[in-house]
Structures are given as C-alpha cells and as structure tokens.
C-alpha cells in the first residue's frame, strides 16, 4: 500500500459536503483559581461563558479578542481537546459529548489544529518527514514503508520542497515550520482546520505567505477554517464571518465586512479603532475610541452587561440586564441593549 493510495482511501470515507458542519451550543468552560490549604478552589473563572458557534463547509470563521477573552479556550473546546462544562458540540451531525473514546477518536480526525508556535509544536528529534506523516501512521492509514511518499506529497501540498522530509525542525525557518505544521494537520484530510494565532510568531513577509497558503488550500480543497487571532488585519483578510469575544462571551458576530465597516457593539468599535492602519495620513485622521479602565477581574464580573464598566454609552438598564445576541438582519448579531447607537469606527 503506498502513501498516495491510502490518502485516496481516506477521501472516500470523508463525510459528504452536506455533513460538513460543526455546531456548538451554550459552551461553558470554567477553570478553578486560587486554591486553599486543602486544594479546594476558592473561585472559578468562566473562560468561555455561553458561546454558540457554527462552522460550515468552505467557510473561514474568525474569532478576535484580547488576552483573557476566552478565544483560545473556545478553540480548544471546538478542537475537542477539552470538554466543556456545559453545552454541546455537534460535529457532522453527531453529539461529541455522547460518544465513546474510540468513536471520538475517529471523529476527531475531521478537524485538526495548528498552533501559534511552530517551534514548540514539532519534536526536535524527529525528521520533518516523520512529523508530517506520523498522523497517518497513528491512524493506520499508511505503513512505515509508505511514510516517505506520503510525507513528500503533503510537503508539496503546502508548497515546500519534498527534499525537506529528511531535515530536522531546527534546520527550518519559522515560516517553513509553520507550513510543516499545516501539512501535518492536513495529513488526515480534515474538513476543518482550527488555527490558533497561526501567524503571530512570524515576520511580516512570512505572514503573507502563510495567509496565501490558507487561502489557496481553501480554494483548492474547500477546507473550512476557524481562525483565532488577536490580529484584526489577519482575520479581516481571511474570514468570511467574524466573532468578537469579550470576557468569555461573543459580543458581536456577523459577515466580516459588515462587522468591520459598521460595528454595532461599543467594544468592537474600540477594538477596531485601536488597530493602527499602515497609511500615515489616514491613521492621523482617525479618532480612537478610548476604553475606560482595565478589563474587570473575570472571577468577579459585574452584574448585567460585562462591558458596562468601560462603556461610554452605559445606562442604568445595563447593570440589570445581561444582553443576549440579537440578529440585526443579514446575519449580523450583537449583544448590546443599545445596538444601533454606535456609529462605525472612524
């Protein structure tokens, strides 16, 4: 059995495009903090606090937010690397919370993860060829003898010289390593790639190469991407839809163009206005929406809207009502009692 034959075999038992769907409902993930003398947790932080997410075939969904927003935790939940404390994830029509280990293992290859740090993600003692084809070996898609061929094919898919298969991670640049990580993630032909800050550790010039690669892969294979990033520019360039997270919640979500040009949540406006644009006259003319104070301690969230302490539009009702996502039409949703009151970011 050769590597290429085995890859074709996988393609056959891929779910059809219609089945390619991930739906997450009411996800909650809590982490204990501050342990007492007997190891019992004093308090808990809800890193993800009631999040719904939907990803369909061939679509890139971006998740943006600052540190502590819960975007990476959401990524780990969706990747099935962690189990939610509440809520469920339905992948290709199957509720992942109700599956046995073996079934979950089988389902898990339909989505794969790429992390920020291409240095920490690769075993320095294993050759690039081994790193790339290892998932195939683990899932018994190839034999050891077929690994070299499979690895070379995968490296070609991500635009690398197949000759790199015999090299080791330390001999590669950051951009090449990130391509290797993407090649390995693609080995089992997932339909969904979860990419957590895939370009943050890379140089400007290398970043554009990885963005191009993700775009081409999507065009050629219909791959879906969940792109988690603090970098609005990257998300804006790649994502069809974007979700903005603040303290464990999605506060605004919709088609990227709508959210960027016509943000409805005051936090989205502030976040967008803080991203400097690489155009000096335009940047000088922009008005920044300044946020008051720092984000509240996630273990002691305020009542009502969790953003209200920093919001310049806050009214009395914001302290009593916890706003839920409301559809403004055309699939643009916002969780703010005053939605519509916020103009586009200057």
């Amino acid at each position, binding site marked *: 059995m050769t590597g290429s034959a085995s890859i074709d075999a996988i393609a056959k038992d891929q779910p059809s495009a219609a089945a390619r769907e991930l739906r997450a409902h009411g996800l909650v993930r809590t982490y204990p903090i501050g342990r007492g003398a007997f190891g019992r947790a004093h308090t808990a932080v809800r890193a993800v606090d009631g999040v719904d997410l939907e990803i369909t075939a061939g679509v890139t969904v971006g998740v943006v937010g600052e540190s502590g927003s819960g975007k990476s935790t959401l990524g780990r939940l969706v990747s099935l690397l962690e189990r939610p404390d509440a809520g469920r994830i339905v992948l290709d029509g199957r509720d992942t919370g109700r599956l046995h280990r073996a079934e979950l293992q089988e389902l898990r290859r339909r989505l794969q993860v790429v992390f920020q740090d291409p240095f920490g993600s690769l075993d320095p003692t294993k050759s690039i060829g081994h790193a790339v084809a290892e998932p195939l070996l683990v899932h018994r898609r190839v034999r050891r003898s077929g690994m070299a061929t499979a690895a070379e094919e995968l490296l070609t898919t991500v635009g690398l010289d197949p000759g790199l298969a015999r090299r080791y991670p330390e001999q590669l640049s950051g951009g090449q390593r990130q391509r290797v990580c993407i090649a390995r993630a693609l080995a089992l032909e997932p339909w969904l790639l979860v990419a957590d800050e895939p370009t943050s550790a890379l*140089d400007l010039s290398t970043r554009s190469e990885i963005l191009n690669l993700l775009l081409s892969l999507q065009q050629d294979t219909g791959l879906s991407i969940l792109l988690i990033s603090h970098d609005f520019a990257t998300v804006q360039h790649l994502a069809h839809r974007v979700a903005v997270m603040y303290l464990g919640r999605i506060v605004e979500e919709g088609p990227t163009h709508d959210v960027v040009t016509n943000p409805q949540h005051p936090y989205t406006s502030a976040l967008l206005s*803080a*991203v400097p644009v690489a155009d000096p006259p335009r940047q000088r003319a922009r008005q920044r929406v300044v946020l008051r104070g720092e984000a509240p301690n996630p273990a002691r969230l305020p009542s009502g809207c969790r953003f209200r302490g920093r919001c310049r539009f806050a009214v009395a009702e914001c302290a009593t009502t916890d706003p839920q996502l409301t559809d403004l039409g055309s699939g643009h949703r916002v969780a703010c009692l005053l939605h519509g009151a916020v103009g586009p970011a200057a």
Partner: protein
Amino acid sequence: MSLAPPPSREPLLAVSDLAIDLAGETVQRGLIHDVSFTVAPGESVALIGESGCGKTMTGMAVLGLLPRGFTVSSGSIRLGGRDLLACSERELRSVRGRSLGAIFQEPMSSLDPTMRVGDQIAEARRLHLGESRKVARARAEELLDRVGIADAARRLDSYPHELSGGMQQRVMIASAIACDPDLVLADEPTTALDVTIQAEILELLRELRREQGIAVLLVTHDLGVVADFCDRVVVMYAGTVVERAGVDELFADPAHPYTRALLDAVPQTGHPRTLLPVIQGRVPVAGRFPAGCRFEPRCPHGGDERCLAPQHETALPGARSVRCARAAAGEPVTRPAVPA
C-alpha cells in the same frame, strides 16, 4: 498633526558609517555595515525590517550593550555631541541612566522580579542624580502617576508580577524616563501587548514627546505602529540601511524594492481574500551576504548588472536616501509578484 521638528536642528543622535563584526573562530565582517541615520531632539524615528536585518543589533550598539563577541569595527555613535564609542564603561553607564532610556518587548525580563517597582524607579535617580531615598521615592510616585498608573502611592510597593502586562510596560517606561533622558530606545515596546493597550502605550509615548521633548528610536516590525507614531523611517535589510525617508513619503512612494515589498505584504482592507504579494526567499544568514546588492537574490529587479556591485547610499530629494543603483537612477520600482 506632525510632531517633526524643523530639520535645521542639530541631531540628538547621529550614527555614522557604523560597522559591527563578530569575533569567533573566523571573524565575520560587516554583520552591520555602513549604517547611518540621525534622530533630532523630540523626533520619533522607526527602525524597520524583517528579523535578522540588524534593527535590534543597531539599537544595542547605541546603548553600548552589544553581546559578547560583537565589536564596532568602524563608524561613530554620537549622542548630544558626545562620542559614545569613546566612552569608558563607567561613563556609558551614566549616559544610559541619564540621557538614554530603554524599553524592551518583555517588561518582565527587564524588571527585577525581587524588587518593588518604586525602588526600581527610585534607584535610577539615587544612582545618577544622587537623590536621597525619600526624594527619589516621591519622584518615583510622580513618575508612576505620570505614566498613568492609578493609585501610584500604593503601587510603589507592588512587585512586577502583581501588575498586568500593560502596567508592567508603564513601569518600564517610568523607569526609562526617570532621569529625564533626551532619547528613549524602544525595541518592540508593544509587540507583546493587546491592541487597546498598545494604543494607550503609544499615546503615553506621544505625550512624553510633546510635553518633555523626548526623542524616540522605535524598533518595530509593525507598519501600522510606524504610520501611527513615527516622523521618519530607517529601513534595514541584511545589516545595511536600504532606505531613509519621512513617514508619509515612504508609505506613499517607497524608493527601494525591499521597502515596496514590505509595504505590499500588509493585507489591504479593500481586498479581502486575495493572494498577497510575497518576497521570494529569505534574509541571508549573517556572514553570508551577497557581494553585490544584499537584496538582489530576492529582488524583482535582480539580475541587472548594476546590482552585482556593492550598493551605495544615494541622497534623493526631500532628505531621503536609497541604497539601490536602479532607484538612484530614477527607474521605477515594480511591485513584487503575486504568486500564481
């Protein structure tokens, strides 16, 4: 509103023909080669380029903090008319504390984790200005307040780990400006921070420039930050300066093919989901630079006979310069190719 001072003023910092070698089994010459630029009082100058182009190394040379084995083999670095390369280690320490402040990317690796932040800031004033413990502490409180830390009196007794990343960076700025320096070197000061915190830190640095006339030499790879904060830009590639220009001119009309390529690598808001132009290849490893133009192997115009000879800096109209024979001859710079 441009904060640029009139160009007639004497430069505060003048780096001229700087060259840095690495001593080892074989001496590697010209890791940094022929680097010249100036920073005027109160001005903000960006040093940009990919990793490995020598931005940080140049900054470290200005601070007199080159790592072991690296030596300045020629050129000069003058700060306020004083030749820093001729200074003794003792004199340099005094310059670093008083006239020259530094801010780095990781506040936690620059702040002493065992020392209260008030003591760290006060130490500089006691050491360099000979202030008493009490006076220096009062001044440290003012400084914390100045950099926007709420409840400064109480925060004096905090340890660095008790503060958020943004607050740590504010403490580092307070300690960098403790002795009213003329110039602050900021090496990727906001790279580790969230964008809303980055905007606040840049606003703080802007205020310090406006109110205290502090000049800033900003090492960064973020072109948005350059557009937001800087008056002039020095573009480095493979250890040399390839272009110097005012920020508006540089973004509107880059002269060097490398600058053009860097600017084009930024995703444009109007064209989502389109392939971006890429710079082929990689920055050459230090010590293995091409004999001619160092960018030639990656340049869309490479292969021209003129590119095979070492390139010299040529002055352009409007206080600009470029290190490219083609650009100096006024030939247009095309965009790098979009991959097929």
